[in-house]
Each structure stands twice: as C-alpha cells, then as structure tokens.
C-alpha cells in the first residue's frame, strides 16, 4: 500500500508578535502546525534564541563564559559582546539585582543599566524583572517608560501585578507584555484573559508559561505547553494563541548539576560541560514542546540550539 501523506490542518494559528525595531527586529509565532511539524504546513517564524546577561554581571562563571566576556566591565560592554554571539537573535537583560532579598538595587539604578544596555545594542531587547512581584510592579513600568519606541518585551506580568505592568508596558508605552504563569494551562489562559480585558491587545502579549530544568518535574512543562498549543490550534482557543517565550538559563544554571564544582563532584566531570548539557537539553525540549523563543547563557548552548532550529525548521 502506498504511503499517503495526511497533513494535520488547523484553521487557527499562533499570533505573530514582533519584538524590536529596525532591521534586526524579530517576529515569533505565526505557525499553524505543531512545533517543527514542517511536514504538516508552514512553521511561520522559526523559533528565536536570546542571550541572557544580568545587571549583576558574571556570578561565579564557568571558564567558557568568563572567557567570552573577558575585559567587559559594564553591562553595556557585556551587551555588545552578547549581541555578537553566534546564533543570537535577541538580547535578554535580567534585572535580578533588584530583588529585595538579594542585592536590592534601586529602581533608578536599574533603569540606568537598562538605558545603557539599550543604547549599546540594536538587537531586540527582552527585559526580565527581579522576580519579586512588588518590586517588579514598580520597576518594570519605569523600564517600559525609558524604552519607549524600542518595542521591547517586558518579562513578566504575573497574576499579582499584571495590572501595573500590563497597563504600563502594553498600554502607556506600547511595548510587548510577557504574561507569566506557573506551569498550568488554566492559569496561563486566565492571565491572558484578564490582561486583554485590561485593554492590552492580544498581539502584544507573549506567554511565559513557566519552565523547569529537564529532570526537575519537567513533564509538567511539556504537558502544559503541549496542551496550550493543542488548545490554540485544534480548538481555536484565541485566548491561548499567544507565542511562548521560555527563559531557560535562569532555571538550568541553578540546579546542582550546573552549580557543583568538579572538586566537589569529581565523578560528574567538568562543571561547564554539565551546565551546557542541562541548558541545551532543556531548551531543546522546550522548543519541541512549543516554545517560540528561548533564553540561554552559554555561547555553546546558543550556537547549538540555533543550529538545531536551523536543521529542523
């Protein structure tokens, strides 16, 4: 019996969202097939890879990262260097130094870093908050304000602070809003619903549906992304048709496989190799589960994932 191709056709598609301005602006989403199902139809825009830098600079870096950023003393210098990385589509600036339980940098201090970085690079910018909901609802509106006209993606508005961040980023200053929920399709949907009710256009929303490192309860992530894409495409659920961005590195670089020094765990071998492996494995899994963009740190991870996308798409 001859093989008959039966493409799986959907009448719905993922929304296309543009981040950044000018020549280097990127578009994510737009597909009406499951991730990398090129045999079924149009993939829309290929998934994009971002390089993450932090306002705190490098904290106990592995040799590969330390070498890559050698000589950089400011966030702007690091941003410039990161933007040159092979495979980088966008830059992600983490403002983790704003966390009141950490360095607790002031909003003004962080906004100055943001400005400096934005001026240094022309790559599309994604700004990640401090992960503290109160601080972010004060910090991220200011970030949205100073980056007017740059069309950046602000990560993230959560259930607790979506009003402040959604109104500032999505309405007042015309940026893109990242809607972050914790690995649960219904919470993701609910946040999209209330954010659009606020007046933010659906085409200005990118979801961060949460992630984990592969091996750390990661099945939930796959199941959530899978179900979101299925609901968006097969059931035409318009409230779940926003593209997904997944900050991978902030998760994977914190697990013991990436943190333990070789001296403490000699049987595990090189820390750097382990950390890269964790980052690549997780990012690859996120992409095939439905992420439209991933955020990574190590140059080797960025190059590898970019190559994977190129080969598969």
């Amino acid at each position, binding site marked *: 019996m001859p093989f008959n191709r039966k493409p799986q056709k959907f009448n719905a598609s993922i929304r296309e969202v543009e981040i950044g301005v000018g020549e280097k602006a990127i578009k994510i989403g737009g597909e009406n097939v499951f991730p990398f199902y090129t045999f079924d139809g149009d993939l829309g825009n290929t998934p994009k890879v971002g390089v993450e830098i932090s306002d705190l600079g490098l904290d106990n870096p592995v040799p590969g990262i330390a070498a890559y950023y050698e000589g950089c003393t400011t966030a702007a210098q690091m941003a410039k260097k990161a933007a040159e990385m092979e495979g980088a589509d966008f830059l992600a600036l983490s403002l983790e130094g704003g966390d009141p339980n950490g360095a607790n940098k002031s909003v003004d201090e962080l906004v100055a870093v943001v400005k400096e970085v934005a001026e240094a690079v022309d790559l599309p910018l994604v700004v990640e908050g401090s992960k503290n909901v109160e601080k972010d*609802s004060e910090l991220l*509106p200011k970030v949205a*304000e100073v980056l007017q006209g740059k069309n950046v993606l602000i990560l993230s508005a959560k259930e607790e602070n979506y*009003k*402040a961040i*959604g*109104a*500032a980023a999505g*309405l*007042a*200053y015309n940026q893109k809003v990242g809607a972050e929920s914790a690995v*649960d*399709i*219904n*919470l993701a949907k*609910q946040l999209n*619903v*209330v954010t659009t*009710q*606020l*007046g933010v*256009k659906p085409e200005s929303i990118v979801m961060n549906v949460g992630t984990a490192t592969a091996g750390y309860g990661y099945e939930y992530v796959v*199941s959530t992304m899978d*179900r979101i894409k*299925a*609901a968006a495409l*097969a*059931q035409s659920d318009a409230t779940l048709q926003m593209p997904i961005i997944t900050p991978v590195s902030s998760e994977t670089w914190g697990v013991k496989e990436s943190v333990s020094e070789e001296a403490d765990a000699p049987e595990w071998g090189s820390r750097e190799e382990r950390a890269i492996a964790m980052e690549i494995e997780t990012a690859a899994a996120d992409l095939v589960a439905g992420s439209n963009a991933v955020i990574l740190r190590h140059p080797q991870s960025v190059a590898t994932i970019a190559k994977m996308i190129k080969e598969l798409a």
Partner: protein
Amino acid sequence: MTLFDVVFKGNDAVYGLTESAINDAVAKYGEEKAVGFPDTAYCLPCYYSVTGVKVTNLKELKEALGVVKTLMTREQKLNDAFMSGVATALCAEFIEALKYIDGAAPYAEPYYGHLADAIIRELGVPLVTGDIPGVAVILGKAPTAEDAVALVKSYQAQGILVTMVGECIDQCQSLGLNMGYGVRVVPLGADVTSVIHVVSVALRAALIFGNVEPGDSASLMKYTMERVPAFVNAFAPLNEVIVACGAGAIALGFPVITNEETFRVPKSLIVQPDVSKFNATSLEARDIKIKITKIDIPVAFASAYEGEIVRRGDMQVEFDGSRVDCFELVHHKDMSEVEDHHFELIGPDFDEFPVGSKQSIGYIVEVAGKNMQADFEPVFERKFHSYINCIEGVMHTGQRDMIRIRISKATYEAGFRAKDLAEVLYARIKSEFDAVVDKCQVKIYTKAEDCTKLRHEMAIPMFDKRDERLSSLTDETVDVYYSCIMCQAFSPSHVCVVTPERLGLCGAVSWFDAKATNELDPAGPCQVITKERPINEEIGEYEDVNEAVRKFSQGALEDVSLYSIMEKPMTSCGCFECICGIEPFSNGVIITNREYAGMTPLGMTFSELASMTGGGVQTPGFMGHGKHFIASKKFMKAEGGVERIVWMPKELKDTVAEKLNATAKEVYGIDNFTDMIGDETIATDPETLVAFLTEKGHPALGMDPLM
C-alpha cells in the same frame, strides 16, 4: 426654566465668550498664529479626541468653533443637553488654549493648568491597578475652608486623586494644606474653564490606554464612563456655566454631586446638602471601591495564627454558643440601609466582662451591593471561621449559632475590643468579596437578652430558610450548572460539573460556591454551563454539558452523564471524599471514604480504588464523589439510585444516615434503609456481605444486573 434651559443658557454664554476671545486673538496675532498646549502630542486634546481633527493655528481654531456650534442643538432632550455640555467643554478648551499662545506660562504656583502627556502615562498605571481608585474634581467655594480641607483630606486618605478649580483652592491654601501632584492634590486654576485640563486627562487616557480612535466619540464616552472613575463635587452656588460644564461631565459618565438644591438626575446630578457626606455619596455614585491594604487592629492578623489554641487559663473571655445564645450572620440589605464601614456595639465591650467568664455574642455583618445576592450570604459566613482564627490570640470554632470564640489575655491586654473584631470582618469581606460587596457594616450584640432574642427570632429563621432553599433546590429547578476546573493543575483532563444535587467530588464546592466563584472571578475556574439541549435526561446527558466538558478538558473528554456510574460517568481528579464502585455479587455498589483505611468487600482499600478512579479518566463502574452526594436523589439515578448502596464504612454510614434514610423513605418507602447496608463490622468480603443483605432483604439483590 428647565434644567435643559439652564444648560443651553450656560453653553451660549461660554460660546459667546469663546467666539469673541478667538476673534480678538485673530485680530491681534493673525490667523496663522500657532495654538496648542505644551508637552502634548494631541494638539487640542479634547477637540482632537472628540472629532479626530488636530487644531494647530487660529484659523483652524475658528473652523473648530464652527463645528462646536453644530453640537449646540436646542431641543428639550437629554442628548441636546449632553452635546451642549460637550460643546461647553470644548469652548473652555479653546479659551484655555488661547492663554498659552506664544509659549506663555499662564499658570503659576499653586496652579497647574494644562497637564503633560507624560503625567497621563504615569497616572494611567495606578488608575488601572486601582492604586488611584478615583479622580475627584472639586469646583467652587466650600461652605467653610475647614469643609474644603476635610473633603480633600478624605479623598487623599483613600488614595483618590484630587483636582481643584476655583475658590476651594484659596480655602485650602488659607489653612496651609500641602498641595501638589506629589501628594495627589492638583489645583488646576482659578477660572472655571481650567476644569478642562482634567477633562483633557480623561480623554487622553482613553486614547492612550483605551486604544480609542480619535473622532470615535461613542467609544470615547464609553471608555470614560466605564474606565475613568472620575466625579465632580460642585459647591453651591451653581451658575449656568457650571451647570453647562456639569452636563459635559455627565455626558462623559462623571456624576456631579452638589450641595445646591437644584434639579436632580438619578445617578448623574445628585444633591447632597451635607458637604461632609460628599465623599461617601460620590464613591457610591461612581461605584468606586477603596482597596483595603491593612487591617487596623492592635494585634497581628495572619494565617499563621489560624490553628492557634487559646487555653482556658490564658483566656480573657469566652463566647460559647453551646451554653449560651450566640450567633454569627451575614445579612444582605438594600444599598440605602447600609453605611459603609459603620460599626455598632450594642451592649458591654470586652473590658466589662469578668476575666475568664462565659458570655453571649451575636454579630451581624450587613452587606449591600448592586451584584449582591442572598445566595452569597452563607458563602461569606463560612469564611468567618478562617478570618477570626487569623487574629493573633483569638480562637473560633463552629458556625452559625454553634460558635465558640475565645480571646486570650495577651490579645485583650494589647487593646483588642469588639470594634477590632468588627474591623477584621469588615476588612476581609470588603477585600475578598469586593466584586459583589459595595458597602458593609457590622453590628455586635453582647447583652444576653438581645442575643437570645435575635438568635431565635432572626438568626435561626434565616438559617432555616437557607436550608430549605438548599434542600428545595434541584437540578431541574435551576437554569445553569457550573464547571469547576480548580484541580486541573494536578489532573489536566478532569472537569467537575457542579449541580445543585451533585456537589463537586471534593465536597468543598457546592452549586452555590461555584456560582459565587463565578461571580467573584468571572475568568476563574467556575464557568456557567447551560443545560438547554438534553440528550437523555434519565442519565443526565446534555449537549451543552458535553460541549463544555470538551472545551474545559481541552478535548480530552468527549461526553459525560451526570447521573450514571456505568455510562460515561463523570471523571475524578483525585480529591474525592468518597469512591463508589460496583459490587457484582449483590448488584449493588459499595462506597468508601478517604478516612477509612481498611479493606472493602471489593478487595481493595480506598487508596487502591483511588488509583483507578482518579486522573481525569472515565472508568465505568467507579466514580469519585462528595459525602453529601450519597443522600442525593441523583446519586446514580440512572441505575436505580441510592437503593443500590450495599456497603459503607460504619463511620460514614452514621454520618449520612439521617439524610440517606429520608431519601430512601421518600423515593422507595423504605424505613431505616441504612440498617440494610453493610459495614466493616459486618463484612469485608463479598460472601458474608451477600449473606447479610439477603437476611435483611436488601432491595439491590432483586434489581436488574448492573453489568
């Protein structure tokens, strides 16, 4: 003169002034002279928002005035008055714009005049989040300077942004009130036309935050009406110009509250002779709710104290409903009958009771709201237990008229009194149920005779009425059911369909709870399911229910029946209180509950049964359910109903006995049905069970086979 005539007259007067001001300006500067406000991309923002046309010079301004004239129709109709109000506002903007010609700075300390776009973008965020819950526009001269200051401060305390026009500014200045954008008190200007600068803020907000297209005046007014929580407080005396401006405000959805005896227009032009009540009247008229961020009591309030026990020796006073008359009650009333945040103590306070004594208490929380329903009363009331327990050093058990409250000596010594108890109830109800509660007041009774009287004459009859409503509510008498997908985080394809006679399988979500959850959180886990297209009413299958289940399970489930355990049974997450499974030897079913760890006649324990019942899959012959469902007439109705129950753990049997026996009596005429049901003291294997059932003549034995 009608109200319309007053508006028209005021409008005509302002129009005349505008016309001559523009003509004078043209004569002085020529038609090409640029006009506009500083720091705005919206040219003359009000005119631009309403018409979509940007005015940049005097020539265009003159043309614009011609357009304004077309709004000034003079029929004695509401729309004519509104449009004349808008026309008045636009004229005011033109007059104000002329003040800024040649880069002049017409406003100096303390006045602000025109507000820049940047301020609106900055203000927009707290307005959207509710951190600025409203915008007050205070106009004219208050009866006394003290009144003006008191009013401004009352709004300031609520986080409301205050803008002022006219003599109230001088009054506040004379008493040294600190004013300025930083403290959210913005004096706009001395002339009444300066009020346009706050209107300009509202309209630009619609363009920026509402994505309203300039010129789309219908969307513009809808936006300001629904999203800009502004209102006007206009002090007497009102002249025609103020009334005409007021008509403009009302057209945008902003109610006007005044102390002048004038025409009244419900919800729009409101007369409140007592200036000290302007705040409350305005908030109610504009439907503004103030966020409560902190509960003002002398001890801590946190969930950490929820399980705290107050021992007899540490106790200052005890209220014990099992010994003396006590009760707690939520009662919904008319909006006019409730004064928000009012507290009344009828009887002695805690410091008048002897240490360690047992006393009576009755507290009634009276709530009112446009969306409030009597059915929510018990939903709120059930939260009291958790609220009161969260107070440091206060213990609460029971509900309704069987409550017990203990207050510790330390908490008493910290100053905790009846008003603090009321404050906790007020603050929690207002913040948790703000979607439906607009106003809330608390009454506490501590005299034994009052408590006795109110308990028996008010509380108990109300509880009875509620119970009656609950028991008379059937699946047939309601129009909608509710979905509940709270557990999908753990059980992704499970959907509960909650009906009056079949509560959620966790036992915690009744139809009322689901209804309240839906009203309070419309995008939340409980959604309305209609039941208009029955497929098979015997097993409880509806097309609409199936559609909902398909949607909420993201396609994992195709169809469910509400009343059958064999055909398309409802799925279970894993939170079920009980599991019911068929027992083939007797044609019946056994039920076991989570608390019972022992063996069942099926040869499986609760946890073994749970592993095959949960996870959102349909397993014919098994289902998870709540305890209260056991006595329901809808319990596996398709297979014959409760008659099929042949075995339950003894404790569960005792818990449900009264209601189950009543159902069996009513439906089948069987007396003391539970006596026929086996338990672990009688049998944990099928043979012994069937022998027992035969001896008792259990009806299941003679019924059609289940399989």
